[in-house]
């Protein structure tokens, strides 16, 4: 019996190791490569042979790359801000206000997210030209918000539905307007959902490539994924793998930091105590 449970435990951890290696290896290999220089780049190696910061210096010394970092930060932050604002208000209506066609509207919102990016690219491009925001951060913010909203609205609607109706009714009796209910009563209870969806929206906006490539033309407007892809070496024939890997590691670190910070904020059972039980 104890042999069997030992075997089970070993099997369990073996599977865990396989999954972790499978998920993390590409990123690990990028880190290893980012410390390599010269011909080392083209040898397969699983441990860093030396800690050379040359690639990092090259990338961070490149002023357009630093500029793209800030572009990305600006665009991703505003995307999160706009989509959360719109999604919270929309999900309040979808979860709590009874109106005709509510289910249809929810399905339509979901359907929007089913289109592949490439299918709407041309139409979106026309729209952006029409609005005169081509080659500005607003082009990306607009398109990212469009693609983030369906998911955000769905998740928040689900959360909003689970909030006790009595709390809302108590607020109504207390004289709260819908906006006060959303901002002062529901928002504090929705933090875990907001953090989760906001984080995913941020990651999506931060990593997006196709729109960012299409809607920018000048170096100074590029976001980080485009900047990395367009990093050029000394000659046409040389692909600068070292700096590319260093840049990739640099742009991933903020995401990891964000997740680590907000992980602590995701407190389960925040509504405990408001209603019975």
């Amino acid at each position: 019996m104890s042999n069997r449970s030992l075997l089970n435990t070993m099997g369990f951890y073996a599977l865990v190791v396989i999954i972790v290696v499978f998920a993390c290896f590409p990123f690990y290999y990028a880190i290893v490569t980012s410390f390599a220089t010269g011909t080392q780049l083209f040898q397969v190696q699983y441990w860093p042979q030396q800690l050379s910061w040359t690639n990092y210096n090259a990338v961070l010394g490149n002023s357009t790359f630093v500029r793209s970092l800030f572009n990305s930060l600006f665009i991703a932050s505003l995307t999160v801000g706009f989509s959360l604002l719109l999604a919270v208000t929309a999900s309040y209506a979808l979860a709590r206000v009874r109106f005709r066609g509510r289910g249809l509207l929810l399905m339509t919102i979901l359907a929007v997210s089913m289109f592949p990016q490439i299918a709407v690219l041309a139409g979106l491009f026309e729209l952006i030209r029409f609005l005169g925001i081509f080659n500005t951060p607003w082009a990306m913010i607009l398109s990212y918000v469009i693609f983030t909203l369906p998911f955000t609205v769905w998740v928040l609607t689900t959360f909003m539905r689970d909030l006790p109706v009595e709390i809302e009714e108590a607020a109504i009796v207390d004289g709260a307007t819908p906006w006060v209910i959303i901002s002062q009563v529901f928002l504090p209870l929705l933090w875990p959902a907001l953090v989760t969806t906001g984080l995913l929206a941020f990651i999506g906006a931060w990593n997006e490539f196709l729109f960012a490539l299409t809607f920018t033309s000048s170096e100074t407007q590029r976001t980080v994924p485009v900047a990395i892809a367009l990093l050029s070496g000394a000659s046409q024939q040389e692909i600068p793998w070292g700096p590319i890997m260093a840049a990739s590691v640099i742009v991933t670190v903020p995401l990891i930091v964000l997740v680590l910070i907000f992980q602590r904020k995701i407190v389960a059972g925040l509504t405990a105590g408001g209603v019975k039980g």
Partner: protein
Amino acid sequence: MAKIELNNVTKSYGAVDVIKGIDLTIEKGEFMVFVGPSGCGKSTLLRLISGLEEITTGDMMFDGQRVNNVVPSERGIAMVFQSYALYPHMKVYDNMAFGMKLAKSDKGEIDRRVRNAAKMLQIDHLLDRLPRQLSGGQRQRVAIGRAIVRDPRVFLFDEPLSNLDAALRVQTRLEIAKLHHDMNDVTMIYVTHDQVEAMTLADRIAVLRDGKLMQVGTPAELYDNPNSIFVAGFIGSPKMNFITGEKAQAEGATTLGIRAEHIDLDEGGPWQGEVVHAEDLGSDHYLFVDIGTDEPVIVRRSGKLNVPLGTRVGLRPRPQDLHRFGPDEKPIRR
């Protein structure tokens, strides 16, 4: 502080009529209890008065003023919910002050009222806690405190005790009664399915069934002179004994009702039967006597149980306490 009049009020959800035309006047300072089985519409009626639901047809008047389309916060009501409905992220103090803060009241006035209400309910030491750090009874007191701070014309209670355990329920019931006594002239409307709560708290009770008013009256009126079999069976514990068939016809009724405490043991009594079950409550006891009807007749006697099971006994109902009902389930007047 408010007189509430309902004139032919109805409420429908689509094709479903939940409240089917209710006329009722609740006097200033009255403690009115809505009671009835689940699904009878008593909570809906309370929500119509609160303004959380709109009435479909009819008129609702507060002190002679039509309030059909007035939003809850402007009706001068305060509501205590079954599930307490406290704001989980706010401290007790902020929970109680929220309504006044939204009304942009003076800070000093808010503080004075919150502390007064807290003192009244003996929760002044809990003001800095969050709802999740409180016990069920304390949470319900905070919810009541939140209602008091609003200084409403009408207090509405929606089954406020049903989430509390038995001992706490009795204690909180006393406190609500005391509250009504202390706050002179405050109109209170209280919804419950528990007829004991209704009997002990109410100035008047309104019994509802299927969205209609069955009877409105003081607890004593309902207990002594129920106007239907339904009310007779709903009010009072243990339930009134109902006897049909020959024994009822002998008294000139379709159904005969007699309360457990209105039956005496008498060897020569008209009903003869066997004691099939007994319950001893200490101060008094119940005998369940099978006299050949569908259900055994319950007899309530004071003192300790002294009749062994299986004993054959004779029962004599007190004639002045017999309720005789006709085929329409209404009482037959003598």
